[in-house]
């Protein structure tokens, strides 16, 4: 009951933010907020796979692409028909309901890809899994390039602008909450055991393949959702946005934040979204932007490879108004 009240409260808050925030802050900052939030969702979901479960996935951009393109296909081709079907609802609700379907569709298609890729590959050793996922991301990109119906090399334009602050804020919060809850659960313990020592985990009765695939599929789902938000924000999708460089960018975020730390992923995602923007304003330094970035990355690995927060998480449970179940003594 209490949890329901909290959810309703947050829902209302998000609606209010959606309505009033753009009036209070400059649209440029809203833009930065949007990009940061999309990156947070990507980083947190990748962290579940790479950080918590210790699986080396280098193809996250592929999941994002699948989510983005499949959801855009839905809203672009089916959207108008669906909205007509819902004309008994006020336009705003109909539009957002269609978007909800698109989000679910995007997430699910990415999740299905995760399942297809995960099941055969997750029995491969670390480096090999990295290579397969890298390859998967590239195959997705090249296949998209070859499908004219979704724009191919010209890109998919004309995507309806359904991404609003409401969706951005609520989905980011939901992703963080869901992944945190999952990590601090029995599933989470299983994921961690796979990371720590797969052989010991198997010996203790953990079906490691099942948990590796699960982490992979969940991570893919959220990446797909991020892709959907991305596409419906820019109103344009292009395969060039989903190269392995994009995957590397997300990897860098979770490494800088600290592999395994959800909190770290959030902070690093924000910093690494805002930093390039900030450097853009440094005039002559701007051409050096990427060079500084890469040097900084190398230096970070040489000096503090555990990233900003290591695997540390702040214990927010102290602030949670609900009591944990007391162990029976």
């Amino acid at each position: 009951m209490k949890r329901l009240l909290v959810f309703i409260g947050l829902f209302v808050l998000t609606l209010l933010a959606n309505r009033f925030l753009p009036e209070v802050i400059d649209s440029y900052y809203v833009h930065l907020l949007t990009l940061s939030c999309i990156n947070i969702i990507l980083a947190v979901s990748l962290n579940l796979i790479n950080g918590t479960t210790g699986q080396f996935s280098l193809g996250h951009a592929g999941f994002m692409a699948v989510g983005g393109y499949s959801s855009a296909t839905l809203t672009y081709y089916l959207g108008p028909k669906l909205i007509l079907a819902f004309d008994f609802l006020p336009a705003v609700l109909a539009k957002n309901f269609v978007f909800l379907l698109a989000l679910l569709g995007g997430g699910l298609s990415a999740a299905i890809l995760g399942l297809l890729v995960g099941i055969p590959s997750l029995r491969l050793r670390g480096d090999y899994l990295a290579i397969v996922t890298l390859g998967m991301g590239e195959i997705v990109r090249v296949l998209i390039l070859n499908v004219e119906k979704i724009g191919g090399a010209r890109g998919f334009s004309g995507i309806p602008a359904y991404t609003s602050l409401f969706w951005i804020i609520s989905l980011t919060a939901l992703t963080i909450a869901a992944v945190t809850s999952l990590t601090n659960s029995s599933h989470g313990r299983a994921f961690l055991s796979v990371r720590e020592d797969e052989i010991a985990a198997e010996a203790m009765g953990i079906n490691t393949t099942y948990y590796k695939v699960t982490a992979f599929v969940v991570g893919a789902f959220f990446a797909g959702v991020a892709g959907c938000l991305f596409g419906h924000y820019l109103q344009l999708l292009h395969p060039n946005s989903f190269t392995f460089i994009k995957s590397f960018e997300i990897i860098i975020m979770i490494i800088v934040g600290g592999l395994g730390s959800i909190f770290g992923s959030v902070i690093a995602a924000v910093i690494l979204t805002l930093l390039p923007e900030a450097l853009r304003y440094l005039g002559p330094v701007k051409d050096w932007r990427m060079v500084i970035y890469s040097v900084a990355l190398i230096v970070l690995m040489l000096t503090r490879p555990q990233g900003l927060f290591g695997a540390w998480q702040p214990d927010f449970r102290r602030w949670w108004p609900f009591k944990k179940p007391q162990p029976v003594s």
Partner: protein
Amino acid sequence: MPPTSSEPLLELTRTSINFGGLKAVDSFNLKLFPGELVGLIGPNGAGKTTVFNLITGVYRPTEGEIRFCGKVLDGKKPYQITACGLARTFQNIRLFGNLTVEDNVKIACHLHYQTSLFGSVWKGKKYREEEARQHAKIEALLDLFGLKPLCKEIASGLPYGQQRKLEIARALATDPQLLLLDEPAAGANPQESRELMDLIRWIRDKFKLTILLIEHDMQVVMGICERILVLDYGVTIAEGKPEEIRKNPKVIEAYLGEEAV
């Protein structure tokens, strides 16, 4: 259905494994009956841990058969074999280093209760009750090993002796019928070895276990094992009661070389 005492709990028949050209274990036979405490000894490289790996499904035998509670184990994956009622510890301790002591043991409880994905995220009433139940169970288990005060400590930070105990506690949390211990006394001083001997006998009685033990510490082996098998170069060279094994010339030769006989 628990096996009757006349049926072996674990049976290996002519089990062998080849690695390339090397026959690491050659025609190994073993019948373990419920409640027994049996030792497996032999010089380094004799194939003892390989036998454990065969039983637990890490390796597949190239010949022979392995049965547990009458069921054939070959081809089953390690986690499935553990689910049958078999647990082990490792020669080089394999704890979940970065996790807490209690999480290490909780993971072993997974076997008997799994939640759905949504259940883990939503954490409804049923989930929370189960978590409380597991927590109580592992606290009690850790208490038996004297590890309860260290519940929240990170496993890799524990002293060596405590780590070994934790590994045993973790294995017990899977509610096994058969426990395979791989050199539990490695690195222990004589005092610790004596405590370990008492501990092993005690858990065998309290948890109604059957125990198969690999050990180099002869004090421990001779002290608690009711029956001993000796391996050398993958072949069983002797089997019998401790007194017999102690005097067996082939065993002495295997450990100390021909000149010593």
